């Protein structure tokens, strides 16, 4: 069995939510606030909300899309905002730019929607994430699978979703470790294709374990 050049350390990650005081009552407000809010706010309402609602496989991709649908009754805008796939962003600034562009384009198309008062305000919040090492560490693929089986969903999110914003950018921690430390690039590539929007995070965990199983003998 292959022994990794460097062990994989599973981290426990937990998030405290800070209320920023920024709020939107209309889509124009939302646009203005997305332009001005902190990166931690963009992270909270996109990457983090995916974890907060990890048990849902439909109808929830980010808070902005959900608000556009539920509070503003703008399903077309909601779909466009929901289609922004966080896996494609190495930097929150780029994600913010696309959110802004999507809103600007929509409000040009549908100017009547700009000042219509939402049913309830959107409250901007920031994610304050704390990550600490768990007792789970892996030197082989078998140990990795055992660790992944045991760790929490928050750990899966931290390594598989949020990791894309950490160096090395746009890559999840698992795929990076498979390639760099175990020499299993193909496995890493296959895992990176798992869809975080149509699976629950528990589903993601199961898919990774299923993908890894045939490689255990390698």
């Amino acid at each position: 069995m292959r022994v990794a050049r460097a062990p994989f350390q599973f981290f426990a990650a937990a998030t405290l939510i800070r209320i920023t005081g920024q709020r939107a009552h209309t889509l124009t407000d939302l646009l203005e606030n997305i332009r001005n809010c902190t990166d931690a706010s963009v992270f909270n309402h996109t990457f983090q909300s995916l974890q907060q609602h990890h048990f849902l496989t439909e109808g929830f991709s980010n808070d902005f899309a959900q608000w556009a649908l539920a509070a503003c009754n703008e399903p077309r805008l909601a779909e466009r905002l929901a289609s922004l796939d966080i896996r494609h962003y190495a930097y929150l600034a780029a994600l913010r730019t696309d959110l802004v562009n999507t809103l600007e384009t929509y409000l040009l198309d549908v100017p009547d929607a700009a000042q219509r008062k939402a049913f309830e305000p959107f409250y901007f919040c920031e994610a304050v994430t704390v990550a600490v090492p768990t007792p789970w560490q892996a030197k082989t693929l078998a140990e990795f699978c055992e660790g992944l089986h045991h760790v929490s969903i928050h750990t899966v999110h931290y390594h598989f979703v949020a990791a894309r914003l950490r160096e090395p950018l746009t890559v999840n921690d698992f795929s990076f470790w498979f390639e760099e430390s175990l020499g299993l690039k193909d496995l890493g590539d296959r895992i990176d294709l798992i869809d975080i929007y149509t699976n629950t995070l528990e589903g993601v965990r199961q898919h990774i374990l299923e993908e890894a199983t045939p490689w255990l003998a390698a």
Partner: protein
Amino acid sequence: MASSLTTPTASSGGKIASLEDYFSVVGPSEVEEIHALANRLAGRSVKMVNSTAVGGGVAEILNRLVPLLSDVGLSCEWSVITGGNDFFEVTKAFHNALHGAPYDAPSQAFELFLSYNEQNLRHQSFDADFVVIHDPQPVGLIKARKSSPPHWVWRCHIDVSNPNSLVWDFLMQFVPRYDAVLISSPNFTRPLPIPQYLFFPCIDPLSQKNQELEADFIRKTLEQFSIDPKRPILTQVSRFDRLKDPVGVIQAYKLARKYKDCQLVLAGGGAADDPEGGQVLSEARAAAGDDPDIHILELPPWSALEINALQRASTIIIQKSLREGFGLTVTEALWKKKPVVASAVGGIPLQVIHKLTGVLAHSVEGTAYQIRFLLSNPSIAVRLGENGHEHVRENFLITSNLKRYLLLFLTLSGAV
């Protein structure tokens, strides 16, 4: 009256709570994660201060939270301020005023408030690493703070978004001196010069109100109240209070009943010791008329198991409040995997994400429609209930609350 701080014994049902007790509810990984966070704070001390040892949601939470913080390696003390009836009359008036009720506060009220806070802080030391002051009653204890750490936070359980300005301005001499404010919902906040963190209220899955029950107990409870177990049951659990709109619930039931057979249970207390509660109860009874399928149950405060059974036996849980705090009865229902039809007020939309973890309604007619919809689509009702349960597991359990406090302490102390 002399005033001092007392330390209640934090326990539950005679047994001190341990994190391991929650192993079967939240799973080993969650327990492990909490320990991993707590290890960074081992030996640090926490002091929780509130104004009552028994009764009310805050005491209920502290009763569990304090032993859990101790269990994971922190030294946690819980103190209760004391005061005379005059003090608690003033703080009750403050409480209502902070909710927006009109209050022509006499200057003596503020003097009395300050005087009792002074007395309480003279009788106690505040040298814990983290001091958490709950609600406005003890907010003035911040005067005991020294210039360097320990860290002080104010846990405000009240919706202060639209307060009586006289009372709020008075509190503002204290609040900015804290390191942070912990608040239950983003829509409960006020602009403040210090950080505000989101701390959801929580339920204890092991309490009598939420624990799993034997099917036989549920059956006997229905029998006790002459409720037919074979037909759909709609239930609202709430005090008999106009803001819970029991008459509106009855109207919604009557509209839904034209299309789908069902029974209605309105279960709650608050009528015996509250003149308005008695009147609301009478109004509900009048609205129910002689419909044998409407069960209005006035339950005593020690009916946690019966409430639990009624919720578990229900087909749909309703919470048609006109105004609401966080709405922990909704949390309880979601935890029991029940489809919920609720008003979009207070903290309810945080819990009921429309069509994902329940359904929101904005009127009697809307409530009736959603009831019909769920009774006609049981598979959707089941899915909403399952999602609601997971939503509570992730966000609104006592273990999530414990984790939030650990995160807060780590963040405040720069230990991460």
